[in-house]
Each structure stands twice: as structure tokens, then as C-alpha cells.
């Protein structure tokens, strides 16, 4: 059986203009307890790769440039 993709709107957004991942920052990726953030090969910026978020906020709190915003996941908003 093939595996399909199910679209979801992810709760965590990164302001690419503020993100300095291209200068080597990986703070949000490092601290996330659920390990759901990654640096994109395409844009060189952080993004939410997996919609598996505890809306706990270390990513936002620890980002040195204030690039991360944690929203409440849609299903429980």
C-alpha cells in the first residue's frame, strides 16, 4: 500500500528575514524536546518539518533573533 501525505498547517513559524541559520545558528533545532525543527537545505533557514508540537516554546524563547513564533496547534486552538 502506498503512503500518502496528509497536509497540516504547522503551529511554529519562522520569520526567514530574522533567522540567522545561514550564519550557523541551530538553537531552536537543538532545544526542541520533540525534535521537529530543521534547517532547510533549500532556504538555509529554520522551519518546522514535523507537525508534532507540544506548544512548549523553548524554540521561541531561546532564538537569539526573535525569529520563531509558536502558535497553538490548529486542532486544539
Amino acid at each position: 500500500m502506498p503512503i500518502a501525505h496528509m497536509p497540516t498547517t504547522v503551529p511554529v513559524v519562522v520569520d526567514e528575514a530574522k533567522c540567522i541559520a545561514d550564519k550557523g545558528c541551530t538553537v531552536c533545532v537543538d532545544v526542541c524536546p520533540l525534535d521537529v525543527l530543521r534547517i532547510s537545505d533549500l532556504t538555509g533557514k529554520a522551519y518546522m518539518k514535523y507537525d508534532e508540537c507540544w506548544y512548549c516554546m523553548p524554540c521561541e524563547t531561546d532564538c537569539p533573533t526573535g525569529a520563531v513564533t509558536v502558535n497553538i496547534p490548529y486542532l486544539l486552538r
Partner: protein
Amino acid sequence: MDEIREGSTEVSCDVLVIGGGTAGPMAAYRAKRRNPNMRVILLEKANVKRSGAIAMGMDGLNNAVIPGYATPEQYTKEITIANDGICDQAPVYKYASRCFEMIQELDRFGIKFQKTENGDFDVKKVHHLGSYVLPMPNGDTVKKALYRQLRREKVLISNRYMATRLLTGRNGQVAGAIAVNTRDAEFLVIRAKTVILCAGAAGRLGLPQSGYLWGTYENAANSGDGYAMAYHAGAGLANLECYQINPLIKDYNGPACAYVAGPFGGYTTNNDGNRFIECDYWSGQMIQEFYNELQSGKGPVFLKLDHLHSDTIGEIEAVLHNVERPSRGRFHQNRGTDYRERMIEMHISEIGFCSGHSASGVFVDEFARTTVTGLYAAGDMASVPHNYMLGAFTNGAVAGEHAAGFAEEIDLPDYDIGEVEREKTRVLAPTKRDDGVPPNQIEYKTRRLVNDYLQPPKVTAKMNLGRMRLAEVRDDLENRMVARDAHELMRSLEAASIIDCADMAATASLFRTESRWGFYHHRVDFPEKNNDEWFCHSILRKQDGRMTVEKRPVADYIVPIEESERSAYDRQRIRKSA
């Protein structure tokens, strides 16, 4: 990142701590303090800097036994009663006697505790009988403070390694653990003289009503791996039928929290704005009343703050929107809920295992020893009831010190290489298939079945059916689950822990043919408490490859409880006065 590599490394140490949330860092720190020459490894699935229940700090201690406010005897009595008498008092009493020293240690680490103008600790009453709640004004800094100490003591920290199984030595004693890197699936085989399990609650057991797998009360990284590992190593697990079920903000699924708001004058009400419970302290008996109210037509249930002065509410907001679960403020904002104007809709959570709040954990004695030699457990996954954050710290310290002492006396145990090979095969199986069921579907179905069949009110026929359905999912998990990268592999290993916990929940619940702990073990076919037959622990373990449960007597009380005091927690409902 995330591509699967198939390497394997072996390391060895004196003390291995699994889980770097709350109990784990303290266990590792105290092991090192006791003997600085020891090799102490702290293994963490996430990153110790921001992991566990306290990832964003905590607003206060829920169970501080502070000289002048409470005595270890009073506390031990309260917890024994709150836990319906099923309580080995020795570990509770030890905690109560040592926790003040832990508060002083945390104070030295830079964590502040609220004082009154006279310089006394500002302890609040939330429990039914005594006063044990102490606010922490800079509670957001807990993790940082702990991390500094770990660095100073040169604890070896391995982040992003998920432990999957314990290794056992020749005589059945613990010999280490196997872990897999969550970003490249490389194995780490850690030989150890002693192992301390601090992997937290089984927080992804029931499915939250929102349907979002990650919208749990517990830190969602806590998938019950510690319970599963202890089980497969042959350790006894106590009273798993005494589930954790918490009163939470509906949908948000985090605490509101009556412990913070209570001392300011907030309280729980029904839809008429009337109180219906005497006491907001979380217990099975309190949750039973909460459930009754929801069923009665007088629901929904709310946390009421709107009668308080705006400045008071400001103070409450400053706590609730900044530490512990700081996204609470955003949740309310989205819905236009201002505490000043509207009550907060509350609900009861899905089920989990957690001794931090109830009593379902790996059986331990007053030295945090499990029933397996060399294996310790502390925090939410160990059986000391209602032990919360300060219990995780204090019992983590107890475990670390004792494990270090034991490690000084023994040689590194041998392990069976065949065990490692079998585990590698089990772990990697989902990566060897190019087709099948992804772990998120396995997990969703397991947890949905937990809700449908295992959550209270518990019905025998339903639980038996649930076991059959779960066996079908297990067959899929073992033979058809597919993981395409290292991240999915972590999720598939978690799914295996979750289904193990689901089986344990069903088996333990079916064993105890009575009702106890209020809603936590409300069995419809056996609605009464039966002290003649069931005043005992249930101990679940793996014997000859099978799940078994047996009774274990409750140890003789150290602090006697009068007959007339025993039912204090049964009287939760506000009696109608004329």
C-alpha cells in the same frame, strides 16, 4: 540529518542515568558529588537544556514539607490517605524528611522560593489537610541552574539518544542499556554497573480529546519508554491501574492551574458558578467528583477567577503565561478569554501512568531500588505516590547516591551479545520494509483504543475487547510498521512503548476486582472498595515472556492512620447546607 546510518559504538560507565528531565540531572549530579572519580553518563532523548516536564520551568513546589509548616509525619499521613491507603510509607517518609534539604540545595543553585515580608517561606494550602505549596518566583530558570551544575561536575551528557532496552547480566542484574540516535539511527551500547531510570511519565497513552497526538498534559517526549524498558528487564511495576487523569484547561490540556490561582481566591465551579468540590488538590476522589459533575448536566466545569480584582488577576497571569506552560496566554487570547471576564472551561484529561500525580510506577523502595539488582528508578515513573517535581529531585538524589555507592562495590557486569543483536534487529525492522503502516497511524489507533476501551469508568467486557483490538495493532506494529528516516524510527519505537503501556494498563486494571482511588480505578462491575481482598499493591511483571500480576502486601505503616482519618479524601463533595 535524519538519514539512517547503521553504526554502533560501545561505551562503559559506573552510573548510567536514562532521562535528563528533572530526576535524571539530580541523580547524575549527586552520583558525581558522592564520587567525583565515577564515570556518570546522562542519556537524554531530547536535549537536557530543555527537556522534560520542567522544560520551561515550574511555578512552584506542590509538595514542600517545610519545618514550621508541616512535618514528615503529617505529609506521610496525607499522602497515604490521598492514595487510599495503598502506600509503602518508607519512601514517602524519606522524601518528606529530605526534601527541605533539597530546597536549600536548589536555593544554592540560584532558584528562589517565595518568602513573606518576615522572611519566612510563603507556604500555601491547597491539599485537603496540610500546607505544602510553595511558589518559585524565578521558576523559569530551573533548567539553566541544573545544567550549570551538571557541567561543573563533568557529567557526561549524551543528547538525542533514545534508550530502547536495558541489558541484563548473568544473574539477572542490570548491565547497561541500548540506545539509538534519534537523528541518524546509530546505536550506542552503554555498559554500566548501575542504571537509574528517569524517563518520566507515560504521557502518550490516552488520546487527548482534541485528537492531536502531541496535545498531551505531559511533555509529549515522555512516551512511557521507561515503563516499557523496566517491564522487559523483569522489574515489578506497581498499581498501574491507578491511572493519572488530571483536571485541565479544555483542549489546551494544560493545568489552569488551581494550585496557582487557589491561594489568590480562584476555585473550581460548575456551570451555575457554584463550587462542588471541597479541595482542588488533584486526587482520584476529586476527579471522580469532577466527572460526576460533568455527567450530571450541571457541567461544564470551570476555573473561576472573574470575581477577583484585576491586579490579582494580573499576578496570576504573570505566572501562568510565563512559566511551565507559557503558551496558555496565547490559547486564551485566540478564544478571547480574559480571566477578568470569563471563566475558563475545564475538562478531565486522557489517561496516563505517572506517580508524580497518582501512583502508577516502577516499584521502588526507600533507596529508589527497583526489584532488579542495580536498577533504580526516580521521578514520575517510580512508584512513590504524588511526588511531583520536588519528589523527582529528592528521589533522584537518593537514587544517584545509592547507585554510586553500589557501583563502588561491584565490577562491570557481563552482558549477552545476543541480546544486543536481537534488539538491533527489533529496532531496525521498520526501516527494512519499503511498504507498510507508518508509526503515526499505529500510535493513533493504539491511543484511540485506549480511550474507547481502557479509560474509566472501566468495564470488564470492554477491557477484554480492548486487549483483542490492541493485539491486532501489535501484530501490525511488529510485522508491518514502516519507518523511512531516523525521526520516524524514533516515533515507531515510541509507538512500541505506548502499546506495551496500553497492555499493562488493561492487564493491571482487570486484575484488581474492586474500585479504588476514585475515578482512577472506577470499575463499574466492582463498584465498591474491598479492603478485605484488595488492601495491597498489584505488581505487574514479565515472567517467562508473559505479563503476570500478583498482590504484594502494603508495608506496615510507620505513621499510623486512625480509622476515622482514613476516609478524609472520600469527602470531596461539598455537602449542601440548609
